[in-house]
């Protein structure tokens, strides 16, 4: 980190906090504090929704995932536009007409208090688990760059977010999200442009894309239908639709964004803007990861991107085992680079035979490189005495801090921090809203002044901010963070989606049937998670269908 990077990073963070405090002024009633007085325009909600979903994990982990696994993760988002259309047609007008603060409040009107309480608790558990992971991601950044302890970083980040979220409420959260999304887009564009610019002078953009494709890094669409395969067109379109329906239709951290809209039309537009912008945005983030891969075709990447773990296996006690691994890695890297050169030359000369031979050599060398990396991972696991080591989250950061020019590093880091802050602020804001409206006001203190609930909301925001800081320490053992968050969500979203589907589309199903339907749906999801190999994207489908089937069946039995 050079002085210019620090100026850009600190300047951005300070500006975000001041902007949030300025925008959040006047939030002096519960309605203004939790719903911005229903005054938000569609573009602010749209970018806030995008910023909430795009956490630091999106930048750190998605790019790394593209580096190791290609772009197929983009298929995960194919269901999102479908879900946005469905929600615009159903949930948005229903929630607006009901005039609720939370999605779960609607469940009591439709079913009963116990169903509302159960789903509120499921949300608090699920979102409470995820908020710690979201806060941990930027801590990875400063651990890599500065060697600061995780705890200090999460404490600083948490304090900044709690400051403006507590004082300014959802207005501060939404407008800072808007600003943070602009910073993220700028940072993303700068990262992609820089990585292409850093490629050797004789490697054109088309050459770089060819090298990414030859290594299987452009696998953006795969048509095979495999229940155990996490990302293909079908799991993305079907499983992704269910996950997006649950996330944007039942998760208060998203529902609260569009409940602040001036009108049904404004809320719909905010969702439909996301429907059109999200998939291309993810494509470009993944494409940036693929270009980082191509950069490292020419510049030797470290055997492991987690430097502290790499130093462990380079220590004398493991040196005898690590030495041959590193030697194989270096040989494979040189062979891959040489094959890449031959491939591009053959392509320029339109020599089909030479091109075919070069591609085969390039892929074989890539395979040997990956084998050596896997062996190094095994050594780390041996040194630590535990399995599951994964350095995917360190790849992009390692590239940014070691190879990007001054100023751009600060901008990319500001984008990562902006992404983290936008997600965390929305999450603690929604957790506080559900805690106060669905639990405290409903079950503990039903009649109190508006001022009382306003202060309860502020207190709950501080509580959930502190909770996020404490639980963030569990994030370090979760492998690829983006998958960890989506996996956590999938354990609970199916049940939530099922009960909202019952509420919207099955008017004859009553409260008890819905309540036991949720329990049955969650049981089915946990069974699928722990006793089958079904990919997590299908959990939402399974859970939702079991809730609906159980709810409908029980309601018929009762009649």
């Amino acid at each position: 980190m050079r002085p210019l990077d620090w100026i850009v990073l600190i300047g951005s963070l300070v500006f975000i906090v001041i902007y949030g405090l300025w925008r959040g002024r006047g939030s002096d009633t519960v309605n203004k504090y939790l719903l911005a007085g229903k005054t938000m325009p569609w573009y602010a909600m749209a970018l806030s929704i995008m910023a909430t979903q795009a956490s630091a994990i999106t930048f750190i982990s998605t790019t790394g995932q593209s580096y190791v696994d290609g772009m197929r993760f983009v298929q995960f988002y194919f269901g999102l536009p479908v879900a946005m259309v469905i929600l615009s047609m159903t949930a948005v007008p229903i929630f607006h007409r009901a005039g609720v603060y939370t999605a779960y409040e609607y469940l009591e009107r439709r079913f009963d208090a116990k169903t509302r309480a159960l789903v509120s608790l499921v949300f608090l558990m699920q979102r409470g688990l995820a908020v710690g992971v979201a806060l941990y991601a930027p801590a990875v950044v400063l651990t890599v760059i500065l060697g600061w302890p995780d705890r200090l970083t999460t404490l600083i980040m948490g304090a900044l977010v709690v400051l403006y979220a507590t004082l300014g409420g959802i207005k501060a959260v939404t407008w800072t999200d808007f600003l943070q999304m602009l910073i993220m887009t700028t940072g993303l564009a700068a990262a992609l442009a820089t990585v292409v610019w850093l490629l050797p002078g004789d490697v054109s953009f088309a050459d770089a894309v060819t090298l990414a494709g030859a290594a299987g890094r452009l696998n953006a669409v795969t048509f095979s239908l495999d229940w155990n395969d996490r990302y293909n067109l079908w799991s993305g379109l079907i499983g992704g639709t269910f996950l997006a329906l649950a996330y944007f239709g039942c998760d208060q951290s998203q529902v609260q964004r569009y409940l602040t809209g001036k009108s049904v039309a404004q809320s719909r537009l905010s969702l439909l803007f996301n429907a059109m912008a999200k998939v291309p945005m993810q494509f470009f983030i993944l494409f940036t990861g693929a270009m980082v891969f191509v950069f490292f075709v020419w510049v030797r990447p470290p055997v492991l991107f987690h430097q502290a773990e790499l130093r462990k296996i380079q220590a004398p006690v493991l040196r005898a085992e690590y030495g041959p691994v590193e030697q194989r890695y270096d040989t494979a890297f040189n062979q891959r680079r040489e094959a890449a050169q031959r491939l591009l030359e053959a392509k320029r000369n339109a020599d089909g035979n030479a091109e075919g031979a070069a591609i085969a050599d390039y892929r074989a060398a890539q395979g040997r490189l990956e084998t050596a990396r896997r062996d190094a991972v095994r050594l780390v696991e041996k040194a630590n005495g535990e399995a599951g080591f994964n350095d995917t989250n360190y790849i992009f950061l390692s590239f940014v801090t070691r190879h990007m020019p001054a100023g751009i590093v600060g901008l990319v880091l500001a984008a990562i921090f902006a992404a983290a802050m936008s997600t965390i602020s929305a999450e603690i804001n929604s957790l506080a809203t559900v805690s106060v409206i669905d639990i405290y006001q409903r079950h503990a203190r039903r009649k109190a002044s508006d001022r009382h609930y306003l202060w309860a909301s502020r207190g709950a925001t501080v509580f959930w901010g502190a909770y996020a800081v404490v639980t963030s320490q569990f994030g370090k053992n979760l492998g690829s963070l983006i998958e960890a968050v989506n996996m956590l969500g999938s354990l609970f979203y199916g049940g939530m989606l099922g009960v909202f589907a019952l509420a919207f589309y099955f008017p004859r199903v009553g409260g008890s049937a819905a309540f036991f339907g949720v329990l049955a749906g969650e049981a089915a999801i946990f069974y699928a998670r722990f006793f089958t190999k079904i990919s997590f994207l299908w959990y939402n489908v399974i859970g939702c269908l079991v809730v609906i089937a159980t709810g409908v069946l029980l309601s018929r039995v009762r009649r």
Partner: protein
Amino acid sequence: MTPDGRQSGRDGDPGEPPPFLGSWGRLYLAVLGWLALLILLFWLFARTFTP
């Protein structure tokens, strides 16, 4: 907002048309068409550059 924390439940006209394409139905179709186009472009992109 009412004293017990509920809101009044008036949030604009659900029948208000979108600012473009004339109706929500057409806008929804445009969004789904855009998704289909993106999938096609991604597939063509990968196919073109994967030797």
